[in-house]
């Protein structure tokens, strides 16, 4: 059960050889998961693959797609003396329109990094005098924990806990990319842990409509290359099927208990994606029964209109149209210390992955 099996160099090289023996023409595959993007670049899998296989990176970073206006809301909350804003660590340096959460903390805001939304509930329980807000960012993988946090807060009768909801769903983003008339993506690697929670059902309509193979893929180097191999085998055989290459974690039906928890607390809502625009039913928002736990409602937050992106080309990067190290600002006017946009600072951002694992030069 150890991760070592899925990182074994000999197995990796066998997979690379098998891939080389499979392809007879060029193929472009997209992965939609920031964790997979980083794993690919850290291990250098894109450089190990034969030139005929190109991997492009999709909008798989929930931090990166959070609109500037929502970041500003979080910063505004952090500025309130009665609020304790709890967040995952890598939201702290994502730029809002003027500043970021790290600066808000330096100015005296009570911003705390947590590992789980359940930790935020525990803080709320221990500190009844504070209004604890959890900044809920993430894909479907994170939704069960956020839903559990709300249910726990309700069960404990806490009146000082709320969620700033910014959660998103993968299938609508995949559809947008497939809809583009000039879409050059031949096949997709679906995010293994999203599918662990949600199952495979949501991807079947995409396979049927767009006739592309979608392979559920894990995160270790061996898992990623296995997903790539299965996808290429389909393409070479002219097939377009939904396939699971991560069976040890993802089952066809997903995790029913997790889905029930998420469905009880959240519903699909339209959500604005940084770089992709507003996508219907692409986000998770609190159901009416849980409206009391909505921080936007509790604090009367107004969503400001998204400002023009300026020089940041995150939209192009997130759609896989621009490789980060080919962005004119990459490594010069945009660095992790002084980012133009979220993909350069998020731990799952494609630009951050290129900067960290490829350096400043392309």
């Amino acid at each position, binding site marked *: 059960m150890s991760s070592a099996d899925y990182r074994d160099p000999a197995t990796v090289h066998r997979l690379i050889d098998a891939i080389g023996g499979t392809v007879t023409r060029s193929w472009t595959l997209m992965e939609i998961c*920031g964790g997979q993007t980083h794993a690919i670049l850290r291990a250098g899998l894109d450089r190990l693959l034969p030139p005929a296989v190109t991997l492009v990176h999709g909008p798989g*970073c929930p931090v990166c797609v959070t609109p500037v206006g929502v970041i500003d809301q979080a910063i505004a909350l952090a500025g309130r003396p009665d609020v304790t804003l709890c967040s995952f660590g890598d939201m702290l340096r994502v730029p809002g329109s003027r500043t970021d959460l790290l600066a808000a903390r330096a100015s005296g805001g009570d911003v705390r990094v947590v590992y*789980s939304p359940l*930790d935020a509930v525990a803080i709320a329980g221990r500190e009844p005098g504070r209004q604890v807000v959890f900044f809920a960012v993430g894909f479907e*993988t994170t939704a069960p924990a956020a839903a559990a946090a709300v249910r726990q807060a309700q069960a404990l009768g806490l009146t000082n806990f709320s969620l700033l909801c910014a959660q998103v769903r993968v299938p609508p983003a995949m559809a947008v990319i497939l809809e583009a008339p000039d879409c050059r993506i031949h096949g997709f690697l679906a995010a293994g842990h999203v599918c662990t929670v949600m199952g495979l059902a949501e991807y079947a309509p995409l396979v049927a409509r767009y006739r592309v193979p979608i392979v559920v893929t894990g*995160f270790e180097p061996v898992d990623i290359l*296995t997903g790539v191999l299965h996808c290429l085998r389909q393409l070479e055989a002219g097939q377009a099927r939904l396939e699971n290459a991560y069976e*040890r*974690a993802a089952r066809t039906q997903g995790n029913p*208990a997790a889905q029930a928890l998420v469905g009880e607390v959240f519903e699909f809502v339209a959500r604005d994606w940084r770089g992709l625009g507003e996508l219907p039913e692409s986000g998770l928002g609190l159901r009416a029964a849980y409206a009391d736990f909505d921080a936007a409602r509790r604090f009367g937050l107004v969503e400001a209109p998204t400002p023009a992106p300026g020089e940041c080309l995150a939209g192009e990067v997130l759609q896989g149209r621009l490789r980060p190290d080919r962005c004119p600002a990459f490594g010069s006017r945009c660095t992790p210390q002084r980012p133009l946009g979220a993909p350069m600072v998020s731990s799952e951002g494609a630009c951050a992955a290129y900067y960290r694992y490829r350096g400043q030069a392309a």
Partner: protein
Amino acid sequence: MCLAIPGQVLDLHDGGGLFARGRVDFGGVVREVSLICTPEVAVGDWVLVHAGMAIAVVDAAAAARTLAELARLGGEGA
């Protein structure tokens, strides 16, 4: 944020439904994890944990099948 880490369940505390949790050993680091979404889990099972929540029990048989298939690679062509 998609990353989930595998760990082995050491013990279970049934705080009652929403508060069901257990201690999970991630290779020498032990942390308490919510087990609400894996009601079927038993001590000794491996779980995948994300943001403090176990999202799946690892299917050992499926893992064995995958590793066996990988071991066969290299003999065949494509």
